[in-house]
């Protein structure tokens, strides 16, 4: 069922796995959906958020009340489709306003079959998730609405995010190439675990030809493109399940090829180095997070979208099978590890999103850092 709910008052109900319930109106598609309830605090960039594959199987609660104001355009999506499994907003726009807008968000959600809910106290829901942690949720609208107890039972039957291996579900099935913009200087093999469109674009801007490979790519696949550097992308799910990518990364580390990872890629580097990963209570999702680059002391305002983090010691250099490693970046809000780097090898990663989209461009220098590693290796 994918009818638009614009202008209608179809009732909808949101049920959390602990039983808390919010009643509002249907938004986007009418029907039912399940996922992990997470909140995102960005005030701009809903199109990028919706199409970020890392949100696969998550129901995203927008803390900003007005969503949809600039409609939907054809330039800003980060992938080919909307990945969130459900969308929760307070005040959806009735009329979009932007010279780039092509259609309304409401219609887009409905067209892609994304079930949402509007008109609920999103702040109360956010505070609930902050205090109790991210949890499973269901949204039901129209004919999907039933008595509270049976809805709750269905939410409690839905799969959990812990232990979920999702990268392959969202990644490309076929390898493809993003050509360098201008003169080509380097070739990078990018393992797609849920990559956002802006990431290869940021590399291409720097003269990198990016070979985007499926999540199932082997070390042989990676080296088949004769890369100057290897990149591991962001993506959904529990890093503890990503044994395949971890072994590919170990192979890259063995060969000492320049390596860069973002988000899921950071967790994979953590695991490859022998660190653990763990689930944060409610994650970091927003575009205002202060991260300190411990190599320079400077603070950058950054885009985050992660529910898991690497468990590495903040203030000591660790010995790993690939030489010494240290925590290069840390979130100043809660001291969560936001970046790792090897001291004896050209490899580093960050937990947040230097490609932004949505979000500030403060961390774009990290792509330059990757380029420098490849330059140094070539020299």
């Amino acid at each position, binding site marked *: 069922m994918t009818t638009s709910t614009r202008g209608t008052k179809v009732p909808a109900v949101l049920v959390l796995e602990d039983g808390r319930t919010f009643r509002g109106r249907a938004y986007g598609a009418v029907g039912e959906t399940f996922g992990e309830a997470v909140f995102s605090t960005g005030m701009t960039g809903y199109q990028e958020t919706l199409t970020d594959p890392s949100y696969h199987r998550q129901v995203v609660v927008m803390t900003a009340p*007005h969503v949809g104001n600039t409609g939907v355009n054809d330039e*800003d999506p980060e992938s080919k489709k909307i990945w969130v499994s459900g969308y929760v907003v307070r005040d959806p726009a009735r*009329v979009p*306003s932007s010279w*780039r807008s092509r259609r309304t968000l409401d219609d887009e959600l409905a067209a892609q079959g994304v079930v949402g809910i509007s008109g609920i106290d999103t*702040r*109360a829901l956010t505070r609930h998730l902050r205090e109790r942690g991210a949890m499973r949720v269901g949204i039901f609208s129209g004919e999907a609405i039933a008595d509270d107890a049976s809805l709750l039972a269905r939410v409690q039957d839905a799969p959990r995010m812990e232990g979920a291996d999702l990268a392959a579900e969202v990644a490309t099935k076929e390898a493809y190439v993003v050509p360098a913009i201008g003169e080509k200087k380097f070739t990078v093999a990018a393992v797609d675990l849920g990559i956002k469109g802006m990431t290869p674009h940021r590399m291409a801007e720097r003269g990198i030809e990016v070979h985007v490979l499926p999540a199932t790519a082997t070390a042989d696949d990676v080296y088949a493109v004769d890369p100057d550097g290897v990149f591991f992308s962001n993506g959904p799910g529990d890093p503890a399940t990503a044994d395949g990518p971890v072994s590919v990364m170990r192979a890259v580390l063995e060969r000492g090829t320049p390596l860069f990872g973002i988000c899921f890629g950071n967790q994979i580097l953590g695991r490859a180095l022998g660190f653990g990963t763990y689930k944060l209570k409610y994650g970091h999702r*927003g575009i205002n997070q*202060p991260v300190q680059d411990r190599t320079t002391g400077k603070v950058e*305002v950054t885009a985050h979208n992660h529910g898991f983090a690497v468990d590495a010691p903040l203030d000591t250099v660790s010995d790993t099978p690939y030489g010494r490693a240290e925590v290069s970046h840390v979130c100043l809000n809660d001291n969560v590890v936001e970046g790792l780097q090897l001291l004896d090898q050209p490899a580093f990663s960050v937990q947040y999103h230097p490609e932004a989209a949505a979000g500030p461009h403060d961390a774009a220098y990290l792509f330059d850092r990757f380029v420098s590693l490849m330059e140094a290796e070539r020299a």
Partner: protein
Amino acid sequence: MPKRTDIQSVLVIGSGPIVIGQAAEFDYSGTQACRVLKSEGLRVILVNSNPATIMTDPEIADATYVEPITPEFVEKIIAKERPDALLPTLGGQTALNTAISMHEQGVLEKYGVELIGANVEAIHKGEDRDLFKGVVEAVRAKIGHGESARSVICHSMDDVLKGVETLGGYPVVVRPSFTMGGAGSGFAHDEEELRRIAGQGLTLSPTTEVLLEESILGWKEYELELMRDKHDNVVVVCSIENFDPMGVHTGDSITVAPAMTLTDREYQILRDVGIAIIREVGVDTGGCNIQFAVNPEDGRVIVIEMNPRVSRSSALASKATGFPIAKIAARLAVGYTLDEIPNDITEKTPASFEPTLDYVVVKAPRFAFEKFPSADSTLTTTMKSVGEAMAIGRNFTEALQKALRSLEKKGSQFAFTGEPGDKDELLRAAVRPTDGRINTVMQAIRAGATPREVFDFTKIDPWFVDQLFLIKEIADELAAAEKLGPELLADAKRHGFSDAQIAEIRGLREDVVREVRHALGVRPVYKTVDTCAAEFAAKTPYFYSSYDEESEVAPRERPAVIILGSGPNRIGQGIEFDYSCVHASFALSDAGYETVMVNCNPETVSTDYDTSHRLYFEPLTLEDVLEIVHAETLAGPVAGVVVQLGGQTPLGLAQALKDNGVPVVGTPPEAIHAAEDRGAFGQVLAEAGLPAPKHGTATTFAGAKAIADEIGYPVLVRPSYVLGGRGMEIVYDEARLEAYIAESTEISPTRPVLVDRFLDDAIEIDVDALYDGTELYLGGVMEHIEEAGIHSGDSACALPPITLGGFDIKRLRASTEAIAKGVGVRGLINIQFAMAGDILYVLEANPRASRTVPFTSKATAVPLAKAAARISLGATIAELRAEGLLPRNGDGGTLPLDAPISVKEAVMPWSRFRDVHGRGVDTVLGPEMRSTGEVMGIDAVFGTAYAKSQAGAYGPLPTKGRAFISVANRDKRSMIFPARELVAHGFELLATSGTAEVLKRNGINATVVRKQSEGEGPGGEKTIVRLIHDGEVDLIVNTPYGTGGRLDGYEIRTAAVARGVPCLTTVQALAAAVQGIDALNHGGVGVRSLQEHAQHLIAARD
């Protein structure tokens, strides 16, 4: 890297008197900064001439100089205090300009004072149009975004006329360099307008420089507030979008935070450009504000300007986000970095982040065009509003409607009943931006305009237009519904409808709607402003209401006192009332209460979340206040609600609050009525045997004439039920009385006109006093410089009174006590007396904190508002004396003979306004208040104190040069002695023929100059107006000729305003000025801090 250790003392410059474009926001910023610096262990030296500020409270700084903010006086302070550093970015343009001028004169170098928070080069780059254009070009070269509007810099009218051709024709924007609040800028659609605006702009600009720009009228307008630390960490604190598109000064626009109609890509471009600009300009540490225009057709971004300092917008951004920009700027200035400073609200996370909002903030400007009927009310790039209200809601419609009702002005809320009018006419009217355009747009929508039409005529963004349609559709639903069901009611409340609006639509009484709503359980919840959209727990109870699900008001145990603030600043009700509310909060907190502040004015100290235990950023209407009282009653015990410190706004709610069972503390509503109702107050006076001027009320000319005939002309006439002397006039004859009645639209059988005998030649006296039911504490007695007939708010005054003797004070004390007792005051009362001959008349009494409370408190070193708050909650004056809050012995009526003399001078906004023909508005003082602010001069003797007050208000009195004198016949006698003194001080006198004749007969030589009406002489002799414009006159004395002849002086006075020449419009002011000039010429005018004054006073008292 924590704070610098090489700075032990810092001089902070305030912003001086409240003027349009530079108002209470700098008290908020300055107070925050001073407190922070003090808590860092620095010795804080403050200079600010504005007594009505919290920042000039003696406990805020270590040494507080209420002295003129001029390079001369600031140098004296530096010489005396020898500070290590000067922080100039928190006192607006005034502080910045003063600091730059002292730097250029070498004063800072001479005394080894380091400028912190900004460097001179950065200030120049940010403020100089040409340099800033270079900055924007450099930024574009680096990041590929941002450009300036095409423009030309002009230094003469020839340049200006040529410039228009370069830009490709009209319309063009004219912007003078280095003026504050956009003074003197405007749109020129043709050569005539261009000559006028650019001519004035060249004059206003201290560098005789204006910029002509391509028109970007109708584009989307945005602002970003940024902060940078010494490690080059930069954060964007807030984005603001203007509801009114380009063409209206942002201070006059309805503005919204965060930006509503930008995609992330476009927003990040603004952010990148903003960050690149703050770096390129070189603001080392601190905040800046950058304004952008975005073309709605293609997104082309133009950078309009930047302010390398704390500004009105940064105060708004601080209140809108909970991120205290001034406080953090002060910390950055002494060496901290953003990541070393904790976020006050979460306490756990650092300030090196960007606030994210889960609510919408709307600011709406408040204008005072009714005070300047001849002024052109079209909004332009010159700021004209006198205050603002801010509202927070969970969506735009809720915030907007709350903001409009916070303005507390008739017609400011949307109305949905009655005929809207003709659609086309309404749309055409909406093209011209003016006060209340949004209401015109709403009426056009009601009259059938389409969204497209509204956009085409106004260029208001389609998303905002749709929000107006949404509001209108809900109004329609409300009107059409069979009954008020819970869902519809909740929906209406969620979109900001007030009970009063719903009542109007449904044809019900407001209290009936409220009862229905409560019965249906539709009540607001209170959410927290927490900087982080609930990502982290907030420790600071900074609340706003919303019709949502979950409330965040925490239970408490200690009894709470709810203090109602004064709402948006307006002429007649400004920062002085905020001062009293803040003092009450401090005093009651010290006395063990939980203090709860309610206010909707983002400029103020009262709405700083640090001021009270809890802050409700809410409109001050009965509905909103009742809901807060309800919420706080659920949270814990409520000791009472204080209504007498925030001016007329809360006072007007007193009776209704009491009727709704709310415990109003202090002077009871019945007593307020006894003072405000003419009949009841007459009774009080009669019982006390006190005389009031003869008066009567009439509804027709015949009735008014009969009264005037009986009591004799001149008479003071005014409509009943008005504030701030609105529509008040002194009428000298019957013809004018007839005209007044005919012109007045406010007079009707239910709204009679009041006719009072006008006491010509009377001395007006203001008294502030405390009364606890048994004892009177005379706070202070102020003698007005101007005689009765000029609104007390516009009149200069002296404390202690300079010509009243002990016997007079005794009479004033007895009368004050009789009135306070008769009315039933518990707290503060302000009484205005007029001494005519030997009779002491009572003009009026206000049973509340008055405008003069901060002045009186500072002049006598006694915190009257604090004492009033305590008395309201049951303390007695005797107890407060014992406690030390009030002096042990004596009061403001028994000041020692060598007590310093304090002079208050009002500051007028004349230069801000033009009539529709572009001519200035007249500057004559009258019974209607029009000043926006005040300064205080304090010194050992009157002359020096007066001279300081003039220097603080208008610039220093001249000590030599040419004085032009032209006075009304009635003033000619009293002019002779001061004129003789001017000559003795070496002034050359210029006079019109009539005045010159009188002077010559008295042996005083005066050069006759041509009147404006006489035109230029045969030999090219200039008229007086020409002489003023050419800078050949240093002092102007021009008193209005009663009735009729007023226009003769009009040109002179407006020329004086345009040129900034001191212009005295009463002969009393001349006499005072002569004493001031005398003091200045005798040299040795020193500076003395309030703390030193207080020490002296306390020593003399004990």
